């Protein structure tokens, strides 16, 4: 089609409708609040997966450090909630009342300056979006302007994840250390630990998720989305067509960081704490695996992949805790070797293709073979005829 590309193709519209039905109707009706809260936790990773589809799937920029941005978003949220939970009357048994408990344990006597603005919810929400974007911009500018890419970029993002984890653990008095920021209670006086609050937060999260889906889809459907694909394939050609390739990479990386941060902030709200174990190398790689299993070229594939792998993680790690990591590793290898486009690829190449053939056979009756319904069959023939 030479018209502007449709915002959502028919398949994507269907996938979105099914996802909405699942998340808004089926799961809330079918699951008790404990399980629904687990789904909410899984969904926070889906935000990261959407960013990875954009940055890795479309742009070919593999980041093994998305936990950093997930964590930054999560920590921003946690700082606000922690300050609210550390009111003077809640902390009157401390030697310095009114500061978070872990600061008191670490002999801090005043709130550090960078904690001060987190008394404000508005500042916190802005910080959740801006801090990760700024951090991604700095990393991106430092790397992409120097033409660092591919494996080197992936390794550096991983190093950043390691550094940030070490920093958080080391600066215990300012960050809560290895335990993270715990014992979060209320959001503007609203107790987030009750079942009712968890139920509402789940729906808030679903709404935000669809917001992110639409934002990512807008980017993918714009010319910028096609430039990302072009860059993935022939970076030099894009550069010599007059584009500043580094700026486009920085944009994709920043967008992915912001999506991840929204997920992180929701994680803190849903789960009630934030710790460095969601920032480091292992969670960052797990997030890439969710995306790869679901399909790195498909937003919806990546979301379903995230839900499935996390569900499997919960089920298997309850019964075989020591085997789970091996299982996850094997799954990743299997996907990369056999199904590079993940579940979405399997769906498109096998299920959808077969359904299409079946439908056209039903329509055409038994006289026709249904070959025409095979995607690509027509254009292959065209290409051959042109030679």
């Amino acid at each position, binding site marked *: 089609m*030479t018209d502007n590309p449709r915002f959502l193709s028919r398949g994507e519209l269907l996938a979105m409708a099914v996802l909405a039905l699942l998340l808004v109707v089926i799961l809330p009706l079918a699951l008790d609040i404990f399980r629904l809260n687990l789904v909410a936790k899984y969904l926070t990773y889906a935000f990261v997966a959407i960013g990875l589809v954009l940055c890795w799937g479309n742009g070919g920029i593999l980041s093994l450090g998305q936990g950093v941005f997930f964590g930054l978003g999560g920590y921003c949220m946690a700082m606000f909630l922690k300050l609210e939970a550390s009111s003077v009357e809640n902390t009157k048994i401390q030697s310095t009342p009114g500061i978070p408990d872990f600061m008191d344990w670490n002999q801090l006597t005043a709130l550090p300056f960078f904690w001060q603005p987190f008394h404000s919810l508005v500042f916190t929400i802005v910080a959740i979006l801006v801090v990760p974007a700024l951090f991604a911009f700095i990393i991106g500018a430092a790397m992409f302007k120097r033409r660092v890419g591919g494996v080197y970029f992936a390794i550096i993002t991983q190093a950043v994840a390691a550094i940030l984890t070490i920093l958080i653990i080391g600066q215990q008095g300012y960050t809560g250390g290895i335990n993270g920021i715990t014992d979060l209670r209320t959001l503007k006086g609203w107790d987030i630990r009750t079942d009712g609050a968890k139920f509402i937060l789940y729906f808030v999260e679903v709404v935000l998720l669809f917001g992110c889906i639409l934002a990512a889809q807008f980017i993918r459907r714009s010319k910028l989305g096609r430039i990302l694909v072009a860059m993935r394939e022939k970076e030099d050609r894009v550069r010599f*067509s007059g584009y500043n390739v580094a700026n486009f990479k920085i944009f994709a990386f920043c967008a992915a960081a912001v999506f991840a941060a929204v997920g992180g902030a929701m994680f803190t709200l849903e789960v009630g704490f934030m710790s460095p174990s969601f920032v480091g190398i292992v969670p960052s790689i797990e997030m890439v695996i969710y995306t790869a299993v679901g399909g790195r070229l498909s937003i919806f594939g990546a979301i379903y992949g995230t839900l499935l792998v996390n569900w499997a993680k919960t089920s298997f790690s309850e019964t075989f805790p020591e085997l789970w990591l091996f299982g996850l590793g094997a799954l990743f290898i299997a996907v990369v070797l056999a199904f590079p486009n993940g579940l979405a690829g399997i769906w498109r190449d096998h299920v959808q293709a077969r359904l299409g053939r079946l439908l056209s056979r039903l329509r055409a009756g038994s006289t026709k073979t249904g070959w025409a319904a095979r995607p690509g069959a027509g254009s292959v023939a065209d290409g051959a005829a042109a030679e």
Partner: protein
Amino acid sequence: MTIGFHQKDFLLAVEGLTVSFDGFKAVNDLSFYVDENEIRVIIGPNGAGKTTVLDLICGKTEATSGSIRFRGQELTRMTENQIVEAGVGRKFQTPSIYDDLTVFENLEISYPRGRSVVGALAFRRDAAVRERVEAIAEMIFLKDRLDINADLLSHGQKQWLEIGMLLIQEPALLMLDEPVAGMSVSERIKTAELLKRIIKNHTVLVIEHDMKFVEDIAHKVTVLHQGQILSEGKMEKVKADPKVIEVYLGH
């Protein structure tokens, strides 16, 4: 100074251009000048530095010393995308196109509008874009291929597509690196026809080995050998030059 005088007259003035890779001088104190609307062909044996010269002009390789002036702008101090915006277009030796995008999308990306991040987000495929893409597609024999993925094109069609991607940028200087290499005979004839049409209103710098083709199109020929100019001038003159026969045309 004669240098100042040249800058006004020529579209492209390359002077004292040198690039050395770990001491090996791939291009050595090279100077040449290209007029507006001139078709200049660079020939020479393998390793003479032909492609490196194009790399230097379009900013892919950084010069060790020397200057490249294009319409009075010093290209050696500009980034690749600034050089493109100044009006220099480059076609690579192997077809360099986007396999996962359609022919239309390939051409659209090269359309000179919305080249910033915000511009690309706001870019709309309007009638002007569509008409231009279709006009170019017709010129490069791909009008009925607009909707198929570029990886399904034949080698020759991919070369045409990249030429089309260059044309849509409307560059003042077109640089083509072996545009007919690897093509079938019929494709070669069609390409020659296409190039002859293009060169009517462009300044073109071509690297080519096909001597028949060179004779057909060249206004002036520059023969490179070991990074330096061996001979330069009209084809007849170059062909008769004993040095050129010795290192390149002979046998």
